[in-house]
């Protein structure tokens, strides 16, 4: 097929929108933690953008997408993007330039490991962070993305994941819980270290995330047109209903619904609808958003309040639990009327899909959780994971980066 200018426009801007999400994640997180560590997460997300872009360019893209593949990992034909076509398409996305497909996927490879920054915030060494995201990319993201999106063995089994509920949110979400467990809790873990220091900054981040997610989900159609249009709508509805659930729950619980609740609810809805967004109708998304709202809200209560796992920004719930719910939802409410290239779910007569999705989720959860534990333990052995106690007290900004967010 020839390159289509309209499809390419949409993919270029979608690439930009997903790029935006990467520092946006940093603003969202920085605003919600203590001021003395705010820069450290901005540094991690911004540096991560640079480092993981290059890693993808050098080795990532080829390992995920290049043939030949035995289903386990891709070939090495496209190291340094050599041979990725500029004037022709790849068959993954037949109407856009090959380089555009590869650049768009770059942004996904960058943001996934960086989601975990939310779990180890406020106590991880900078050097450990750098090693971690590289190792996590190579040992967890690249294989998993290959299995599901690069025509690997999970794809062959029929696992579907539109924009990354299994590949991204389940793996990173479970990785976040693992990371929080290995690192241990922050010093003086308890309510008074959990007061957000700059909520407008967090709302700026949430805004950019919401906007960027249109590129993340609707861009995953890899073309402009009806599928992209429906995906955008589905994402909007799930985000809105999930946010409303959070407003309601925080209103009921305390009489005073909070801004941090509504932005978290929206992000939870967006994260959860991601895998299903290209396969389901807006009506089903309405219900899915409600489920996602409840699941993520009570997920935080479970993990943070009851189990006292110090996953600082609740990545395990907001991305992990929602990613699992959304990935399973494909097995229930996906419909070929929406996307002929996708599956039908249980409600549309296909009883097998739910089980297949559960397999995909289980694999991603196991790899994300187990792989993270191993990587963290190895790093801990070799260079140490956590800053010293007094460094944690002083804050990562000064001790790791010699900077303060605000002066005067």
């Amino acid at each position: 097929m020839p390159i289509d200018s309209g499809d390419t426009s949409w993919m270029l801007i979608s690439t930009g929108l997903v790029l935006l999400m990467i520092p946006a994640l940093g603003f969202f997180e920085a605003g919600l933690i203590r001021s003395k560590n705010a820069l450290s997460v901005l540094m991690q997300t911004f540096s991560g953008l640079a480092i993981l872009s290059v890693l993808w360019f050098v080795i990532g893209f080829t390992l995920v997408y290049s043939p030949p593949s035995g289903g386990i990992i891709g070939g090495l034909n496209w190291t340094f993007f050599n041979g990725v076509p500029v004037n022709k398409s790849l068959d993954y996305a037949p109407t856009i330039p090959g380089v555009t497909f590869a650049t768009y996927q770059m942004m996904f490879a960058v943001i996934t490991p960086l989601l975990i920054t939310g779990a180890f915030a406020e106590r991880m060494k900078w050097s450990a962070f750098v090693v971690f995201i590289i190792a996590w990319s190579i040992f967890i993201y690249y294989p998993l993305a290959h299995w599901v999106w690069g025509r690997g063995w999970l794809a062959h089994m029929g696992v579907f994941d539109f924009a990354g509920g299994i590949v991204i949110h389940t793996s990173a979400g479970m990785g976040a819980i693992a990371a929080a467990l290995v690192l241990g809790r922050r010093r003086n873990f308890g309510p008074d270290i959990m007061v957000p220091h700059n909520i407008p900054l967090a709302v700026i981040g949430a805004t950019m995330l919401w906007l960027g997610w249109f590129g993340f989900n609707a861009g995953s159609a890899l073309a402009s047109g009806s599928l992209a249009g429906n995906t955008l709508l589905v994402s909007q509805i799930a985000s809105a209903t999930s946010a409303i659930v959070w407003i309601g729950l925080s209103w009921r619980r305390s009489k005073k619904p909070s801004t941090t609740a509504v932005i978290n609810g929206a992000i939870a809805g967006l994260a959860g609808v991601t895998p299903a967004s290209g396969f389901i109708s807006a009506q089903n998304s309405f219900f899915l958003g409600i489920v996602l709202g409840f699941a993520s809200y009570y997920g935080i209560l479970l993990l943070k309040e009851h189990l006292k796992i110090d996953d600082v920004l609740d990545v395990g719930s907001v991305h992990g639990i929602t990613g699992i719910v959304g990935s399973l939802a494909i097995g229930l409410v996906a419909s070929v009327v929406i996307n002929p290239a996708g599956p039908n779910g249980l409600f549309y007569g296909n009883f097998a899909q739910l089980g297949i999705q559960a397999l995909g989720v289980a694999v991603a959860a196991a790899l994300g959780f187990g792989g993270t534990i191993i990587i963290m333990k190895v790093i801990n052995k070799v260079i140490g994971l956590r800053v010293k106690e007094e460094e944690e007290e002083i804050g990562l900004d000064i001790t790791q980066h010699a900077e303060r967010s605000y002066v005067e």
Partner: protein
Amino acid sequence: MKRIDLIIPHERLHEVNDLLRKHQVGGLTVYDVKGRGRAKHEPVAIGRGVMRYIPEFGSRTKIEVVVSDLNSKSIIEDVLKLISTGAASDGKVFVYDVAEAYDIGSKEQGEKSI
């Protein structure tokens, strides 16, 4: 001369300033502080709005005003009258002796300077 420290809720600053203006104080200095005293503070949402908690310290305004020994008493009385509601969170007054005072511009000294 005396220095009077008033530690009060932010929202009373306006009124107290008006009162001090009536007493014709020469000036005053205002600080944003955190503190704890007798009252419970307003709870704030934490953990993404899922939890709630009462912070150890509340946010308060502190006013410092240097006045002549003579005026000190009546100012304090009027402040107490004006903003005491009987609540624990109404605030505190602390009074200190001032050894000396100067106005930098006019180089005046003592009570003339304030």
